[in-house]
Structure formats: C-alpha cells, structure tokens
C-alpha cells in the first residue's frame, strides 16, 4: 500500500515550498488541533492507538465481504465479456464499458483477497491507456481474468507471476483482432 503523500514522497515534491518562493514571502502556518481533542476523544497530547478488538472485527467483515465479492467479480467479468463481443461487432461505446469494468475491478479486487484479478484488470486498463485503438491480446486478458476469478483461493506467488508474465508477452507480440479491425477502419 502506497501512502504516496507520506514522509518518503514529501522528500521529493514540495509544491507549497515552490509557491512560497514564487510569492517571495513566508506563508501563513495554521495550527489545526487534532480531531481527538476537538471531539473530546482523548485528552490533550494523549495519542491514540489502534484497537485490537476493532482490527479483529474488521478482519471478520472483510472475510464475509470477500465471499460476496467473488460472485460480484464473476458477474463483472460476464459483463466485460458481453461488452467485448459488442466491441468486436462494431459497437464502439462498449469499449468504454470494458475499461470501466476493469477500472472497477482493479480498485477493489485486491482488498477482497483477489490481487491477481486486480493485477490483470490493471493490465487491461494499461493496455487501453497505452494503445487507444489497438488493444493487444485483450481477449487473452479477459479469458485469464475469467479463469482466475473461478478459482478460490486465487493463485499467488510463482503461478500468479507466470500468468502476468505470459499476458505481458502476448501483449507485446499480438494485437487484438477487434482493435486491429477498428484501427484499420
């Protein structure tokens, strides 16, 4: 998980400092009290820590949601397959639908214990971003996603790496026929 605005990232990017330099003077620094203080959740200066009971509860909730998500994911992939068939037959707006579904999957699947599905969906989005007309091996990606989603638990480790590597290889060498037809037309 990337906390991109955390300490590591702030060492490199300092837009506020750049702005201050441009303005030629120091900015106003506004101290903001903690929410714990303003809402009376803790006394002044007392730090809060994560509650282990809540951690357990969250873990339980996520487990339940993971089971439900498997069905949701399979339904998403069915929609994606239908959209792809539509795209192949020349319905242009279904292309956006494929991207939309893949974007949704990549944002959520990892949280529901399906990181490989999320990574395949991320690749689908990337293929669309990189090549707006010719989408390399898109059918292979959708097939792989469909297959992976049918497995519980998902493959991980070396097998997952192999699946992703194979999709990358296919994308490098084989453009998608539907996209190719459109690019030509």
């Amino acid at each position, binding site marked *: *998980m*990337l*906390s*991109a*605005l*955390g*300490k590591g*990232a*702030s*060492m490199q*990017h*300092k*837009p*506020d*400092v750049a*702005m*201050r330099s441009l*303005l030629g003077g*120091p*900015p*106003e*620094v*506004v*101290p*903001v*009290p*903690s*929410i*714990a*203080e303003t*809402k009376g*959740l*803790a006394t002044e200066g*007392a*730090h*809060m*820590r*994560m*509650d282990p009971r*809540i*951690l357990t*509860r*969250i*873990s*339980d*909730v*996520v487990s339940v*949601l993971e089971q439900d*998500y498997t069905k949701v994911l399979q339904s998403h992939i069915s929609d994606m397959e239908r959209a792809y068939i539509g795209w192949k037959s020349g319905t242009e707006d279904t292309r956006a639908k494929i991207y939309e579904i893949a*974007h*949704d999957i*990549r*944002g*959520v699947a*990892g*949280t*529901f214990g399906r*990181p490989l599905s999320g990574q395949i969906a*991320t690749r689908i*989005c990337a293929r669309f971003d990189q090549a707006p007309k010719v989408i390399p091996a898109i059918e292979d990606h959708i097939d792989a996603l469909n297959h992976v989603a049918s497995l519980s638990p998902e493959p991980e480790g070396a097998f997952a790496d192999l699946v992703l590597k194979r999709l990358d290889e296919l994308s490098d060498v084989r453009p998608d026929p539907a996209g190719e037809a459109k690019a030509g037309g």
Partner: protein
Amino acid sequence: MTEASLAPLRILIVEDSEQMRTLLEALLEAMSITDILIAEDGEKGLALYMETAPDIVITDGAMAPMDGYELTNHIRTAPDNPNPYVPIIMLSGHLEKEHVEKARASGVTEYLAKPVSWQTLYERLVSIVSNPSFFIRTPTYLGPDRRRETDELYQGPLEKHNAPQPKTTAEILPLDAIRRPSLIRTK
C-alpha cells in the same frame, strides 16, 4: 496512549464504485463509526459536505461530473466553508506521479493507492484523528504543510532540521571498533 474510539466521527465517503462504497461503509461500521454519509460523485459530495460538515472526507480520485481533486480544491477554498482544514483521504487507482502531484496540489491529507489495505485505512484514520496538524495558506494553496527541507527563512514548528538529528553509523559504532580483528568473524 489510549485505544482509539472513532465512534463519534462523522465521515463522508465520495466514491463512484458501488463495491468500493459498500466496502468502505462496512469497514467504517466495523470501526464503530455509524454516522456515515455517502455521495456518488464530487458534485454531490461537495453539496453533502457543505450541508453536514463531516469530520473526515474519504474520496475517490477519478469521478464525473466532479472528480476528487476538484472536490478537495473546493473544500479547501470555498469561502463559506466552516472547516477548510478537514482531513481528506484520497483513494486512487492512479499511482502515476502526475496524479500524486495533482492530489498534493489540491490539498489532500493522505493519498492511498487502491486496492486499499483495510489495516492501512484504519491506521491512517487513527493517526489523522489523533494527531494535530499544520496547514499552509498562501494566495494559491491551502493544504497540509509537508515541508521537510532545510530553509533558513522558515522558523516554524515543523522544521525538521531544528530537531535533533539521528546519530550516524560512525557515531554509533566507531571505525576502530569495526577494524578491530577480534570483531572479524573467522571460520
């Protein structure tokens, strides 16, 4: 140190994905937070924010008609906003530098990459609730103060170079100790 009770918080979720909304709502409820407001895009989120003044905003990045960056910008700059310093956590599937910089420039408090780890979300919420913060206000920017660099013009409370520096390896372990033959492991 006290264990975090987040129950009294009012949190606004602005997210266009139904699954993500469901997940976030369930996670917040597991944290005993029940005052949860939900909007499907930035425009509705802004309206709900102005109406309800939540303690924390959790927003997606890419949305239409108003995205999370614009939403953050509006919250930070709206003249009639009673709390422009509200913590804003942005969840985004876009990890590219330009998106991160855009989020920073709009004034988000935290930028978390999707897929969101629930442990990270809880940890960030506890940290945001627990810690006071400093904001920077200039004519063109209002957002968290993230300065870390040495700057002789700035004498503010967050300047890291004013704090005691950690010891270097050489200070902790003198060089002659490293060179001492007895410390070199042999067969």
